[in-house]
């Protein structure tokens, strides 16, 4: 009984961490993806300034998730990372270049355009790889005796390329609605203009994935189509959010598009969780089979329960300090 509870608590914590990561790093990666499409250098300054103070706090969730997985569900860590080996490297390289670009773009004058490129390409590569991970996750992993036995490129399939591109569109949408919230004038107007286009891209991507998934995965098909489940509320709410984005952009609301986009991501994420539950490593390893020893889960739980409120409080405080519109090009 104790085992079940601890693993369930850990699943909640890591699920929460992943969600936080997607939402928060999502919009700052999205800003990077939109970089080449920005109307001018002033817009780029505003966009980067709007995420510069908070992006590295956003990435703490990635590291916490990685370490937490090793401690609580080691099988996820030791099967997914080998399976996604080359993709993980590309993602890390992308995140590193992008992180360094944040720091050095402002300290650089002559070579600023190089840092612009590093920021944009790093964001695109990292996002694409994360989308591919989602796709590979849906497709499942070839495992024998708790060890990954598939090939080095199993993660790269037509399906995962689609999920990679769809996530790029999704993060770009988050980035665009974030820009609406944080900017004004012609930058904001540009963000308003591109948001409906991005929304269409996202919906097309989601439609392709939703139709395709039941074909690549019998388990998902049975879960969704064998009988009507309560889970259908998630895609329904996701569509409601999409409608809200559309309407609020048309009415030129400032905060609503971003909030609705977060809702869109949340319900899609919950839908994905519902598709796979209780399997943590599709197709056949459950949450409980992937767990570490209960005493190990408990040992770390004490520390994490203490630190998560602190990190959340610090995060909230950072967003509060940097609230409001970002103006001007001057960083210093």
């Amino acid at each position, binding site marked *: 009984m104790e085992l079940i509870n601890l693993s369930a608590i850990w699943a909640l914590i890591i699920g929460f961490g992943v969600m936080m990561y997607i939402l928060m790093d999502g919009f700052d990666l999205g800003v990077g993806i939109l970089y080449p499409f920005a109307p001018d250098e002033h817009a780029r300054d505003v966009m980067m*300034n709007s995420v*510069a*103070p908070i992006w*590295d706090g956003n990435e*703490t969730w*990635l*590291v*916490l998730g*990685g*370490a937490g997985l*090793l*401690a*609580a569900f*080691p*099988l996820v*860590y*030791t*099967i997914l*990372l*080998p*399976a996604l*080996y080359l993709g*993980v*490297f590309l993602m*890390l*390289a992308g*995140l*590193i*270049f992008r*992180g*360094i670009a944040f*720091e*050095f773009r402002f*300290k*650089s*004058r*002559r*070579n600023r355009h190089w840092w612009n490129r590093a920021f944009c390409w790093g964001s695109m590569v990292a996002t694409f790889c994360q989308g591919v991970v989602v796709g590979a996750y849906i497709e499942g992993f070839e495992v024998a005796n*708790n*060890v*990954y*036995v*598939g*090939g*080095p490129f199993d993660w790269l399939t037509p399906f995962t390329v689609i999920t990679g591109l769809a996530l790029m569109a999704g993060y770009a949408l988050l980035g665009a609605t974030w820009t609406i919230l944080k900017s004004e004038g012609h930058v904001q107007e540009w963000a308003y203009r591109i948001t409906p286009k991005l929304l269409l891209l996202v919906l097309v991507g989601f439609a392709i994935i939703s139709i395709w998934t039941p074909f690549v995965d019998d388990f998902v098909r049975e879960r969704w189509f064998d009988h009507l489940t309560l889970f259908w509320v998630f895609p329904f709410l996701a569509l409601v959010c999409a409608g809200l984005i559309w309407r609020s952009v048309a009415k030129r609301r400032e905060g609503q598009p971003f909030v609705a986009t977060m809702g869109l991501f949340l319900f899609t994420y919950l839908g994905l969780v519902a598709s796979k539950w209780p399997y943590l490593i599709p197709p056949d390893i459950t949450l409980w089979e992937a767990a*570490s020893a209960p*005493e*190990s889960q408990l*040992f*770390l739980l004490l*520390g*994490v329960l203490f*630190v998560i409120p*602190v*990190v959340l*409080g*610090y995060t909230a405080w950072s967003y509060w*300090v940097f609230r*409001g519109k970002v103006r001007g090009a001057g960083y*210093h």
Partner: protein
Amino acid sequence: MELDPVLLSRIQFAFVVSFHAIFPVFTIGLASYVAVLHGLFYKTGNPAWDRLAAFWVKVFAVVFGMGVVSGIVMAFQFGTNWSNFSQATSNFLGPMLSYEVVTAFFLEAGFLGVLLFGRGKVPEGVHLFAAIMVAVGTFISAFWILSTNSWMQTPAGVELVDGRFHVTSWAEAMFTASFPYRFTHMALASFLTGGFVVAGVSAWYLLIGRDVEANRKALSMCMWLLLVLAPVQAVVGDAHGLNTLEHQPTKVAAMEANWETQSGVPLLLFAWPDKEAQENHFEIGIPRLASLILTHDLDGEVPGLKAVPKEEQPPVWFVFWSFRAMVAMGMLMIAVAFVGLWLRRGGRLYRSRPFLQTLRLMSVAPFIAVLGGWFVTEAGRAPWLVYGMMTQTEAVTPSLSGWMVLATLIGYVLVYAVVFLTGGYYLTRVVRQGMLAEEPRDDEVETAKRPLSAAHATLEADAGRQFGS
């Protein structure tokens, strides 16, 4: 040539961890130094301490930032290249490494921001408290990592059930036989690193006659510290070696390139250990000295490499020479510290150009020593990953092929080259900019509260001139 995923994974891990290691080693020492400077300012009110603190905290911030970047890679290495090891040890390793992350986050969330950006905004007492907490936090971080590493060297408090380690006693697993020695040795190494870097930079400022008063204070303080710590480190290192002799005799045999178990072993100053032939070429040694050092007896018996089969011997030449590099640097540090003491007479410490130039060069010595020491302890336990319980071959990710590891290894080399050359170059810009008469205040809301933002130097030489003091 066959690409061996185990060997390449070892090289990859050695590469990323070596890069990563130099940052924390430096920041741990520097954090304590910054806390001391804040304490001195708080107590004496002398603005020279305040300016030194404001300068060194900027250096700290840049190095800390680079450490965070290289740390992200480390968090994934265990899973990508050593998945069997991660799976087998996760019950212990998972919580330990996670606690390190948790400590680092807590530190960053709570106190680093106040230390980096609180100058002039919070009361000096609060600022001092934040500085102390950051210094303490870096040690707690080091605790988790070194405790985990010590467990891999001298495992205890676990039982192996169906190929997975289960913790039977957290206390025994966290505080293993080699842990106190390793931790003390590394803590002192961090102080020595911080001390020699600060001494080197202060010496450079004195050479060009900048901020003479403050830098004399800094140099004098460092030289006293080094005078005590450098010899103490030799004693602690000796104790650590004796502890290793007890628990990992093969490693010590490799450090001394001693093939036969025998008494009256010479201390080799030069040799070319040949593992294939199981003997040394070109030996030059001092008779009986190794026996004396290791057993504190001229005729003491020292275990030899041949006590274990060839497959269980570490790469002898690598361990042998890494150890010599570390010891040579240690001797050099002690010598410089004593020359510094002698030069204090008549204040030549601050004026002797040859000595100040030497100090400048000595800034790299502790880094060489630290890397040498880590090469000894890590390569020296080969072929074991968890000593006596799991080999490197058993630990590696089964699905890896050699070319995958080689490709990512080349990738990491390229990424790190760009990132750390830029970072290192930027660090030299921060140092060249030196202490500003009036520190820029970050009052604008737009300024990010991130480590690297604490430094204000620009990246390019020409653009930086406007900051010239």
